[in-house]
């Protein structure tokens, strides 16, 4: 996602505050794809993600008058999105069995399958992280939010975000190494 020029973004927000639907569509086009990706990674369901993103944009449109001019839009937007995702997660925790399966991306046919398997292993490992590590990891590595932006939208100190990213990344590395070791052991059996 190319960063939206801040002057253009402000202009779009001004226009949306005046009820300009076309400006809202432009803003949507810019943010929707990564919002859907982030929401999918957080809720572990593309269907819930679609709902969360839909509700997020509806809230944005209905509350855009409350958005303070001069403040960056991105953290405000992602704060709403994360709240919506958490709402769906809360429903899912109440209503869906623990062994609920993640959406499965169709398997790719590719001669070199090692990277794809690594992606899948890693995605699964991310899903098993506690939310305090998982959400900053998703925001940083999927959406390229800065640590400052993540801190702003999660109401955290920047150093806390850095620490969680570091810890989360270490947990993922450990998990991958453990998997690799297990695979090596099982391959070595007679």
């Amino acid at each position, binding site marked *: 996602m190319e960063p939206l020029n801040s002057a253009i973004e402000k202009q779009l927000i001004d226009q949306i505050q005046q009820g300009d*639907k076309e400006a809202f*569509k432009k803003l*949507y*086009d810019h943010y*929707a*794809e990564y919002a*859907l*990706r*982030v*929401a*999918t*990674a957080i809720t572990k*369901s*593309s*269907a*819930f*993600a*679609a*709902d969360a*993103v*839909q509700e997020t*944009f*509806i809230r944005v*449109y*209905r509350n855009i008058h409350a958005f303070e001019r001069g403040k960056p839009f991105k953290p405000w937007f992602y704060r709403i999105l994360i709240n919506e995702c958490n709402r769906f997660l809360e*429903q*899912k925790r109440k*209503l*869906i*069995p623990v062994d*609920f*399966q993640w*959406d*499965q*991306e*169709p398997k790719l046919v590719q001669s070199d399958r090692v*990277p*794809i398997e*690594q*992606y*899948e292993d*890693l*995605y699964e490992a*991310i899903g098993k992280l506690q939310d305090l590590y998982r959400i900053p*990891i*998703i925001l940083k*590595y*999927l959406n390229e939010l800065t640590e400052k932006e993540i801190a702003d939208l999660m109401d955290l100190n920047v150093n806390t975000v850095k620490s969680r990213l570091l810890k989360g*990344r270490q947990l*993922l*590395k450990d998990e*991958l*190494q453990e998997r690799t070791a297990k695979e090596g052991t099982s391959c070595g059996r007679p």
Partner: protein
Amino acid sequence: MEDHKIDELLSESLRHSTDSAARLQAQVWDNIENALFKDDRETYSEGEGRIMSRTATHRRKRRGPGSYIAAAAAAIILVAACLTISTETGQAYVSKIRQMFEPEKKVVEHIEGSEEETDLQLHENESNAALESDYVIYVDEERYTATKSNGVQRIEAKIDGDYPDVYMEISQVKDRKPEEIAQELHAQLAAEYDDVTDVTEVTDPVKGYNFRALAGKEWDSEKIVYYIVSNELEGSFVIKQAYFLEASEGHGARMYEMLRQFQIVPPGEDAK
């Protein structure tokens, strides 16, 4: 593993694993547009993974109980939703499907304690999606209109006056199993309605999973019924019926009977 390697792997893994959701962008916009800019109706449509529609419930004028029994015989249309029909091959396939089913037939419907014999008439519809199963269904053309938009077949009651919407929607999810979809939709309904039945396996009117939600006990309380059926490949059909409490024995029964005529035609079946 080196830090830059894990960083790169994290980004690639997250992107790769969320590609399917990114493709929902246009569909989500349609829903947002409906919610914000068209009446007060919120429509959610199905594509890669989704799913249900919801309409604001309003207090409506009461309608006489007998008005749901129509006297005239119905012409029934067959809706054949096919996936490759815009092509020449697709047209040929439609013709084969048409040959597989009777152009006309009669069914007996049990409506509010009475039996009605209804004439059935063959009709077809087109779809451009690919790699999914086709299906056919008989629709009471006199009482319902059948339309298709964004892969969703909508069979809607022709009702005069200010009544809640009555319709049945059929959509296909090509890569998710019925069990998974049933759990997910059930969770969504349970979050929205107090009265939701458990997911149960049924064999009538279709073989699949069924559950329903009821918004209250008023005559016009919204009732939503879901059937989730395997598409006999790797995916599912999601069938949603929406009507209101008083219409259960009228439109509810008619839609039940129409759904009994639902028949899946997996790709290649026509060649047998």
